[in-house]
């Protein structure tokens, strides 16, 4: 049994989750490296970097091509997209002050998808000068605009006087997702054969089409959004106490909100543009991290990026191995892992939704 003095000593030094959260940077970084290594070594072709280095590979050139042109860009893209989705989720949850706000669930991914599809199908109609100016960035930029418009609309509908109504947010998200889906469906009718092939592959949510060229279109936008997101820690912590209190804490509330919306739109938009709608990463990762190391957004945003990257790469490995040599769309894997977590949060915090 604990004596009274022992109990007092324990409370004299309250549990400090900050150190744990900072140590987690290291552990999650190591985890990411490990997952990258496993991902590089696993695949239908049986090629491995280890084999190449030790000289036991049968066909050096083929092995080199598979590793360099297939697996590496896929790993880079998986890590980038996973980080983007998880950080989008964390930022959006901070902005809406609600753990259920996820770009996939509230229709932001669908809005970004609509932007991307519009660009794929109607991009040819842009004036040539503009086309050559934005070039390969047309699709991710259009996805960014679609995502941005969605977040703005959602924030305008669900947030009044600095308070978010969770019910309105979820319902508006359903409407937004349905509308974007319908218009995207219309676009498909206007598409030609080649565009249709692009769209089908992309709609499933997959990392299979990863190339260095594609990565180059998304990486700058996602990179910028991730770096910007790491500056939001203090602002989002303040916003957790309400907009008025954040203001009194000296937080530039309007700038924080604008930057948060741009980060979500940029990261979600670019991720959706290159890999389609991969759901639930944005809700599972921040939620697990909040349970483990607390809701402080400073470390949370960095840890979300690291764990999101690892999680998506892990899901990608599963999607390649489960029914090898065929491949499962990664969106199915993340949904099977993520949907129960979403329901779990909903059940635990039912009062929060108060429908």
């Amino acid at each position, binding site marked *: 049994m604990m004596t009274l003095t022992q109990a*007092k000593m324990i*409370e*004299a030094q*309250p*549990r400090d*989750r900050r150190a744990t959260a900072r140590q987690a940077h290291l552990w999650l970084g190591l985890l990411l490296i490990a997952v990258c290594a496993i991902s590089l070594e696993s695949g239908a072709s049986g090629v491995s970097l280890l084999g190449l280095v030790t000289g036991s590979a049968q066909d050096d050139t083929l092995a080199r091509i598979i590793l360099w042109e297939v697996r590496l860009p896929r790993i880079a893209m998986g890590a980038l997209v996973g980080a983007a989705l998880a950080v989008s989720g964390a930022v959006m949850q*901070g902005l809406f*002050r*609600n*753990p259920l706000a996820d770009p996939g669930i509230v229709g932001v991914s669908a809005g970004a998808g609509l932007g991307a599809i519009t660009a794929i199908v109607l991009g040819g109609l842009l004036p040539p000068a503009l086309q050559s100016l934005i070039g390969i960035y047309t699709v991710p930029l259009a996805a960014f605009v679609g995502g941005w418009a969605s977040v703005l609309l959602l924030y305008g509908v669900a947030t009044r006087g600095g308070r978010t109504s969770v019910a309105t947010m979820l319902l508006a998200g359903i409407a937004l997702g349905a509308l974007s889906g319908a218009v995207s469906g219309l676009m498909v009718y206007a598409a030609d054969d080649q565009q249709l092939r692009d769209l089908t592959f992309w709609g499933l949510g997959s990392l299979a089409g990863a190339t260095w060229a594609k990565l180059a279109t998304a990486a700058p936008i996602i990179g910028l959004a991730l770096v910007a997101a790491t500056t939001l820690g*203090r602002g989002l*912590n*303040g*916003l*957790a*106490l*309400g907009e*008025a*209190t954040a*203001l*009194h*804490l*000296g*937080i*530039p509330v309007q700038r924080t909100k604008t930057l948060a919306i741009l980060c979500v739109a940029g990261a979600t938009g670019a991720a959706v543009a290159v890999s389609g709608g991969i759901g639930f990463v944005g809700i599972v990762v921040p939620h697990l991290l*909040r349970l483990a190391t*607390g*809701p*402080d957004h400073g470390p949370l945003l960095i840890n979300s990026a690291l764990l999101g990257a690892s999680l998506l790469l892990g899901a990608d490995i599963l999607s390649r191995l489960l029914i090898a040599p065929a491949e499962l769309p990664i969106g199915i894997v993340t949904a099977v892992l993520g949907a129960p977590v979403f329901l779990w949060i909903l059940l635990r915090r039912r009062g929060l939704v108060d429908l």
Partner: protein
Amino acid sequence: MLCADHVSLCLGGTAILHDVSLSARAGHLTAIAGPNGSGKTTLLRALTGEIAAQGTITMGGLPVHPRHAMALAPRRGVLPQAARLAFPFTVIEVVRIGHGAGRFAHRPDLPLRALDHVGLRHMASRTYQDLSGGEQQRVQFARVLAQIWEPAGPDGPNWLFLDEPVSSLDIGHQLGVMRLARDFAARGGGVVAVMHDLNLTSMFADQVVMMQSGRVVAEGTPETVITSETLSAVYGCDLAVSEPPPGNRPYILPQNARAG
């Protein structure tokens, strides 16, 4: 010195404050009293620069406006009437959010000392949402204390703005929090508190601003403002201020209200 000069304010198309002028001195505890809906919270929100108002408001010579909130943060802390929190932060983490916004962020001992002041050190690791309403209110007070630790800084006095700081507290903690506020004022800081309880107002305030329907109807020491005539007119029921034999501060007994 906090000065509000001819302040008017509309919310949602309705005029809430009408030509309010008042001044509050550092070193004093200024209480804003008045019936429900008389505009006390709205006045406090204008005085802290949370919402823009017509007229001029200055704090220690600095203009008060939402635009200047960042410059004001190191010099004034605000305790809102109702505080919500979105994520499962622990008590100490909530206090640290305030601490990080103030001038003493380099002193890691302050959050725990602030919790000591409100008697909640032993709950430092508890999740904020699991606390009772009164405990949450004290945590928020500790958060404000950790932000504005010293009553005065190099550029003059610092200020605490408290909206009904003791409304959900038991009588012991009511006295505790009011003593902390009075102590802050006694050491040179400025305190403006919206007060619900007229007895506590009478005990602790140096100056009382009585509001009614968005107007200041009386301003002065508790002795001059908390009178039977003023209270009966403002609160719409016949109240009599009682004077006990010892001491000279007025106190109110609802038992003395006459039907009418």
